[in-house]
């Protein structure tokens, strides 16, 4: 990641289908199983709000749906609810390759040197590793204690 215009790009290959990986990211009953108990809550219409909220109702992140094209492309704006003016952007791009999904997450428009940059640098590998394990083995990874 360059330091002047931070952008994170993470690619992983998952033995699953785009529909299943899409459902894992967008349906709370699946998302909670691999994303530390937190889900992505939205009606998924373009322009609608999106919340990253735990089952105990704690709000971790918020933003808007910029694009929702299942099961290929999801684009969200992304902000800490306590720092709403620092808005970045997350794109999930899913491609079917034989019996796999090539999932690329791009997180850009980040503020250089910010706490968010530090958090997502480890956050994305952690969450996407857990997503891959969930899709391939039925179980996410227990790596979210003490977030």
């Amino acid at each position, binding site marked *: 990641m360059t330091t002047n215009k931070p952008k994170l790009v993470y*690619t992983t290959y998952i033995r699953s289908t785009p529909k299943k990986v899409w459902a894992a990211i967008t349906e709370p009953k699946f998302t909670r199983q691999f994303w530390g108990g937190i889900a992505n809550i939205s009606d998924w219409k373009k322009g609608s709000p999106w919340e990253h909220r735990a089952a105990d109702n704690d709000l971790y992140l918020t933003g808007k749906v910029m694009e929702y094209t299942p099961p290929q492309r999801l684009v969200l704006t992304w902000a800490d609810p306590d720092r709403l003016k620092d808005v970045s952007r997350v794109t999930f791009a899913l491609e079917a390759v034989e019996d796999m999904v090539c999932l690329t997450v791009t997180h850009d428009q980040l503020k250089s040197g910010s706490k968010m940059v530090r958090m997502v640098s480890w956050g994305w590998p952690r969450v996407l590793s857990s997503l891959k394990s969930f899709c391939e083995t039925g179980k996410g990874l227990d790596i979210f204690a003490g977030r």
Partner: protein
Amino acid sequence: MEKTEFVYATVIRTTPEKLWEALTNGDFSEKYWFGFRIELDLKAGGKMRIIPPPGMEDKGDHAGEVLECEPCRKLVYTWNMKDTPEVAQKRKSLSRVTYELTPMGPVTKFRLLHENLLPEDIVKDSSSFRGINNGWPAVISSLKSLLETGEAIAFTSPCATATTTK
């Protein structure tokens, strides 16, 4: 000049010992590394070789040297990029690969760093596995599948160009 490097981290439900074996043993690597066998003398100054599968000898043997070895925790080796003469002129030193393994309870964190790279080593086009940035995620994804499910990902064709760009 900004230095070019590639970092990739993943978390695998396995032990550092099993991950280390998969990373350093050719019988494992040929399952997840496009058929390539890794051969390592696991000590500082030892040889490193990545040998292509039969029929792909033109892909070359990326030979290098082990710089650091801490079993089940850290491995550092040099990687010969097999440059064209033009690119070789620009490369001041061999590229270097670092594996770091960190136990985290029932899982192991694996961090890979590939440094001393040139801009030419990064390929923007994701429709093939060419380029350090395209190759490593595929190899490491396949390694994770092998360790967690018993089956690696057999890549026979690369990612098609994304249907929607930007």
